[in-house]
């Protein structure tokens, strides 16, 4: 902690010194603290757990140095003092080595010095080469991004996670192998005209990075090659990518010659290696008043990359999207309709998913604006071994409007929304469909005073969810007040929210929330932020008998921070 404070102070002194020489520096630098406390009664009740770290310091150091006309040095240092993950390989890991802390996904340390068309990429980088090769994962390493004219030459290598040993807990640390990555992009691109880019990306787990080997977690290796081809001609456009992946799910399995799944020298096939295709293409026309496009996207059942770890496979999406602007752009209609088909590989049950949505917004005049929205999702599968297949249909209709009523000294602003939602689920054994109906209504009023910074508001929300034999009702009233103080250097926002919840057959639960936010502009460039909130929730008797009537919890959350804008 002392080291970090020393580093920050040194950095601030240095930037101050740099400031005296008047170099152009843009960007921001900030530090913040967040505290959180959860109290519950009975204390042993496990229905509510802390959802923020008890104490957390966050540092955001993001200046961009401009030295001369052609040289820039962006710095991106964003880190926490106490990163704790709950998903992915770092979940549960508390005592981290310095290298693990630096490469923890919650932290990033990157600098990208750039001279004209040449950029050096150092530290943590989230590099998106394309939609099907690599892009989601932060990698700590080094690389280059060269763009002489229309040519593109990129290379990067590093690791996305450190080796983490398995720990039986509590909490259980599943562990992870160190995963190394390499990626290359070559091609030509001219923004708004064309792109022809060839991508190679590889990731491989280092089995020797942990000891002993992780139980139940095999080491993996993946390689993907993709070709991006985009063409823009006037109002018409074509964007496409085709990719082939090779992915080994278990590096401990023997190499194979009976299966044709190698792509040497990039990857050697094993019993657990699969190789498949993915592709996407969008074609359409774009103009000021009318857009129309068709998108198709196929991901093979064996397509997998280390650059997109949560990419879902074995699906083919087809969607048509449109946008229409009428009445001098005061009326906008946006809509899309599509169909997703799964299991083109025939390795599982065939599923179909219908997607349709439309949104219509019209500004009738300076006072009245209305919006109508419609969403529909349908999901069906074959019956398989069950008497009936899955059939889920979700339909949502919403209507919202806002009305402004100007007066001499103030403006009355009203807004409301209504939402009706149906969700049908078919039981695969009986064939009976259960309909889940939800209705939400919101009404808000905000008076705005022309000669005062006071901005009060009040809103009401009613929610009703009904299933056969069961209802869940919520009623919320919220009041807020915003105002300026200290010669308008400080802006305050306060809020009080009370919610009454009622499950059929049980007594009501009650929730009270209060919060305050202050932004104090200490100098033209330095702002001080404070956020305080309290949340008290008291259950009715709906938790009985596992928890007593009146079980309750209270959360307090406080944040404060300084943000300097260069």
């Amino acid at each position, binding site marked *: 902690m002392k080291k970090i404070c020393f580093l920050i102070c040194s950095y601030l002194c240095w930037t101050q010194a740099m400031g005296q020489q008047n170099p152009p520096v843009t960007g921001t630098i900030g530090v913040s603290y967040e505290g959180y406390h959860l109290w519950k009664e009975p204390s042993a009740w496990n229905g509510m757990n802390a959802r923020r770290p008890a104490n957390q310091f966050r540092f955001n150091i993001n200046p961009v140095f401009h030295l001369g006309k052609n040289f820039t040095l962006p710095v991106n240092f964003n880190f926490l003092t106490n990163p704790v993950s709950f998903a992915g390989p770092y979940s549960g890991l508390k005592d981290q080595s310095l290298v693990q802390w630096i490469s923890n996904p919650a932290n990033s340390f990157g600098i990208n010095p750039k001279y004209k068309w040449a950029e050096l990429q150092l530290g943590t980088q989230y590099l998106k080469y394309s939609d099907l090769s690599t892009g989601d994962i932060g990698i700590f390493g080094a690389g280059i991004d060269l763009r002489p004219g229309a040519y593109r030459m990129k290379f990067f290598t590093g690791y996305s996670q450190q080796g983490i040993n398995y720990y039986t807990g509590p909490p259980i640390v599943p562990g992870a192998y160190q995963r190394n990555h390499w990626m290359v992009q070559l091609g030509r691109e001219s923004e708004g005209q064309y792109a022809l880019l060839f991508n190679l990306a590889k990731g491989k787990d280092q089995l020797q990075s942990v000891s002993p080997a992780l139980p139940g977690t095999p080491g993996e290796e993946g390689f993907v090659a993709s070709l991006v081809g985009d063409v823009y001609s006037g109002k018409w456009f074509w964007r496409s990518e085709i990719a082939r992946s090779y992915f080994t799910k278990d590096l401990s399995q023997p190499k194979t010659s009976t299966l044709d799944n190698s792509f040497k020298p990039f990857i050697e096939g094993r019993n657990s290696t699969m190789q498949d295709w993915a592709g996407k293409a969008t074609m359409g026309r774009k103009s000021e008043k009318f857009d129309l496009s068709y998108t198709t996207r196929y991901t093979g059942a064996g397509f997998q990359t280390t650059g997109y770890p949560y990419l*879902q496979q074995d699906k083919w999406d087809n969607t048509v999207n449109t946008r229409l602007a009428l009445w001098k752009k005061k009326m906008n209609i946006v809509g899309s309709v599509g169909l997703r088909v799964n299991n083109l590989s025939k390795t599982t049950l065939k599923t179909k998913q219908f997607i349709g949505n439309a949104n219509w917004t019209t500004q009738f005049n300076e006072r009245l604006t209305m919006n109508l929205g419609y969403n529909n999702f349908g999901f069906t599968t074959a019956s398989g071994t069950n008497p009936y297949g899955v059939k889920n249909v979700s339909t949502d209709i919403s209507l919202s409007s806002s009305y402004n009523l100007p007066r001499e000294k103030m403006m009355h602003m009203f807004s409301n929304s209504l939402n009706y939602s149906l969700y049908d689920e078919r039981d695969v054994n009986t064939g009976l469909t259960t309909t889940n109906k939800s209705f939400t209504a919101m009404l808000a009023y905000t008076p705005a005073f022309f000669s005062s910074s006071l901005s009060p508001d009040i809103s009401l929300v009613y929610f009703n969810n009904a299933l056969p034999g069961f209802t869940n009702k919520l009623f919320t009233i919220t009041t807020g007040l915003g105002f300026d103080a200290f010669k308008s250097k400080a802006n305050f926002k306060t809020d009080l929210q009370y919610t009454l919840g009622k499950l059929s057959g049980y007594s009501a639960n009650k929730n009270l929330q209060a919060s305050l936010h202050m932004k104090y502009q200490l100098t033209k460039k330095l702002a001080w932020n404070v956020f305080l909130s309290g949340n008290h929730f008291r259950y009715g008797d709906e938790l009985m008998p596992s928890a007593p009537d009146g079980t309750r919890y209270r959360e307090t959350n406080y944040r404060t921070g300084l943000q300097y804008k260069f």
Partner: protein
Amino acid sequence: MKILFIGLLCICQATAFAQIATVLNLNKPSATLSEWARNTSTIVYIATNPDPMPRQVIIRTELKTTDGATVATKDLSQAEVFQLRDGNTIFSAKEVLPLHQMNFSGSYKSTLERTGKLPAGAYLLEVQLLNPTTLAPVSALQTRSFFLTAIQLPNLLMPVDKDSIDVLVASTVITFRWTPVTPRTAEQVYYRLQVFEILPFQQPLQALRGNQPLLDVEVRNQQQYYWRPQLALKTDTLPKKFIWTIQAMNGDRVPMGTDANAEARAEPFMFIIRKK
């Protein structure tokens, strides 16, 4: 003397041709064939050598469809020779069905190369011990039928990716919907719904992999959840971005990840809470 010699010869011959008793068990075979070798309980093949002398054998394995079409046969010229000692010897999928020694036929080979799986359907596994020299059977043919189908993880439905939700409604309730794990079985499925806030300066997946979830709840056998955020959103700095995902788990809370990823998490979606 002559009678004694003939008697000994008869005993030796009887021993040489004595059948080796075998038992074949198949336990919840994964749709991904390479996973069979990782789990020693998927195939349990027990060979009992009745002789005091060790005997050498190879394992002949054949995969068929239930209507008799051949899916894969083991290349016996590559088959490993095992020495059976007196008593029981237990083999697992690693020895019985080594994929690098199996010759898959036609479309089954191309599907396996592409997906690591076989087409969904009913199959037969036939296993027999052979003499490595003569390839004569030394045990009875064991056959087990099984059904293969891959699991499809949930797809997220609502809020749709990059959807905007009005802060006044979101302060009261946010509805999440997703598709079920398919195929549906009698086994309980627990859907773990997690919502993470994407802090300023964070990438969406960085938030998922690095932050503490604001919501971490298990929903049994249902594909809908109403979340009351209780986050004092209205006074906080807006817009606020969130990323959410569903993790599918079985009754033992083990992720059902065989298809898309080992964590069995659905491809995450983002939503934004803003003042509309």
